[in-house]
């Protein structure tokens, strides 16, 4: 393992330190926690938005803190969901009396820890609602299993819910908008190489030069299938076909996200985007807006994911609204 670190057990702590040092104008850390919040939280009259998860997905989730997006990000150990007490601190810090929406990615750990925090907050009389993002079409949608993972599509949920909350909407309305995004967003990813959790010291799997993992999540895990490496266009075709088969995109407008997993050069992400645009045009799907870059990563994994969000007027407004979040300025 070769990493720019001081002590593998301190990576999260030192990253948090770095973030608040760099962005003290907009972000503060709640003392003795791993919770980062908007400098001006809680914001009077506004529903609070809390997201979070393990570390290693940077710029998620702290990069989405700011006017028009999140009020707080709860930061866990690398790839490990944060604990209920930390999430609870975040809820308390952002509640202005209008209630708090938890944006949770569908992982057993995240769901359990955030739900336990919501229970704690409810005891204190804070109004808490939650939404669970499950945009990864690589995983079968089933009520008997854990279900689909939440991946890069979560960023669109942050954006739209953030915009609606900023407009002064009620908790019920903010939640409904977030649910609408979740119902209309789908993603899928691929990895060309794995990543190494600092404290583990070894990478989670090894891929030969001519192999790739299709259908990966954002935790450096294997995907659903290991296949021979193909050209960018072929990979894009495979991912897009699976995404567009999942819900009806016919004649619709979409927001596109081509998301790098941490070690894929922008050059390659644009090679991907180029073919996404071409294929969508062939399928009669109009691109309303696009984001190409790193939004939801898995440390230094190489690979990318594609996300399509089918938009209507409300979602368009949500995407277009001002955002001061440092990783998603609009």
């Amino acid at each position: 393992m070769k990493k720019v670190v001081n002590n593998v057990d301190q990576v999260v702590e030192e990253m948090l330190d770095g973030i608040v040092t760099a962005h003290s104008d907009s972000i503060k850390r709640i003392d003795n926690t791993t919770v980062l919040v908007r400098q001006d939280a809680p914001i009077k009259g506004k529903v609070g938005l809390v997201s979070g998860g393990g570390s290693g997905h940077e710029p998620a989730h702290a990069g989405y803190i700011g006017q028009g997006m999140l009020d707080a990000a709860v930061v866990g150990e690398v790839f490990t969901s944060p604990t209920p007490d930390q999430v609870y601190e975040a809820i308390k810090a952002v509640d202005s009396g209008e209630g708090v929406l938890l944006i949770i990615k569908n992982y057993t750990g995240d769901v359990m820890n955030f739900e336990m925090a919501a229970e704690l907050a409810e005891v204190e009389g804070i109004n808490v609602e939650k939404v669970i993002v499950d945009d990864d079409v690589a995983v079968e949608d089933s009520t008997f299993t854990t279900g689909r993972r939440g991946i890069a599509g979560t960023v669109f949920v942050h954006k739209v819910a953030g915009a609606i909350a900023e407009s002064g909407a009620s908790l019920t309305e903010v939640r409904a908008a977030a649910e609408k995004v979740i119902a209309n967003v789908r993603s899928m990813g691929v990895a060309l190489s794995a990543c190494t959790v600092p404290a583990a010291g070894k990478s989670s799997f090894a891929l030969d030069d001519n192999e790739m993992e299709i259908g990966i999540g954002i935790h450096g895990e294997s995907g659903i299938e290991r296949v021979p490496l193909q050209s960018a266009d072929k990979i894009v075709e495979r991912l897009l076909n699976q995404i567009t088969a999942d819900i009806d995109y016919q004649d619709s407008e979409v927001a596109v996200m081509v998301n790098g997993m941490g070690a894929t050069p922008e050059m390659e992400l644009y090679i991907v985007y180029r073919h996404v645009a071409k294929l969508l045009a062939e399928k009669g799907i109009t691109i309303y807006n696009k984001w190409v870059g790193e939004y939801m990563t898995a440390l230094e994994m190489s690979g990318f994911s594609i996300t399509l969000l089918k938009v209507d007027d409300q979602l368009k407004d949500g995407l277009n609204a001002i955002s001061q979040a440092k990783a998603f300025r609009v």
Partner: protein
Amino acid sequence: MIILTVEQTKQWMQEIQKRMEANKEQLTALDQAIGDGDHGINMARGFNEVVNKIDDTEYDSVADVLKSAAMTLTAKVGGASGPLYGTAFLKMSMALQDKEVNQQNFKEAIDAALAGIKMRGNAEFGEKTMYDVWYQVAEFLASENVEDWEEMIEACQATIEDTREMVATKGRASYLKERTLGHVDPGSMSSFYIFEALVAVIEVGN
């Protein structure tokens, strides 16, 4: 017959901590195969904190030690295993409130823990999770007077091997479906260490 005293319960936690620390890499490697590679790190961090906490505290009852462990695990582990083990130990503590720990009461505590794991994680027996091992332990304790606690370890060992042949349908491993075949479930393995540690302190105590 009392099978666990306050002192033995503290030792139980210490014995767990030793095993989690010693097998940190093994647990993480199991989780790298079918999860996200944090299980050993999570368990070692959690039980190190538990031992730090209980070493400095005086307890009146076994229930109090278990409660302390539960709170610490819930607050320090995170992931799926934090809430699951936190809930398991909390339910045991609640079941043992104001009771001495004989086999009957301990069995009821394990039943409560099992129900707690199920309540949080929704898993059934045979889904390749830690639930399988706790289920096996509950089954084992249901059989009359235990004389040889080593048999409990054997039962757990068999269950761990069984998880190797299962396709995961709960937790992170479920994403890999058939690719989970041939791999032992990391949470079942860490649960094994919890019960191996228990037997070590019960045997020493008697």
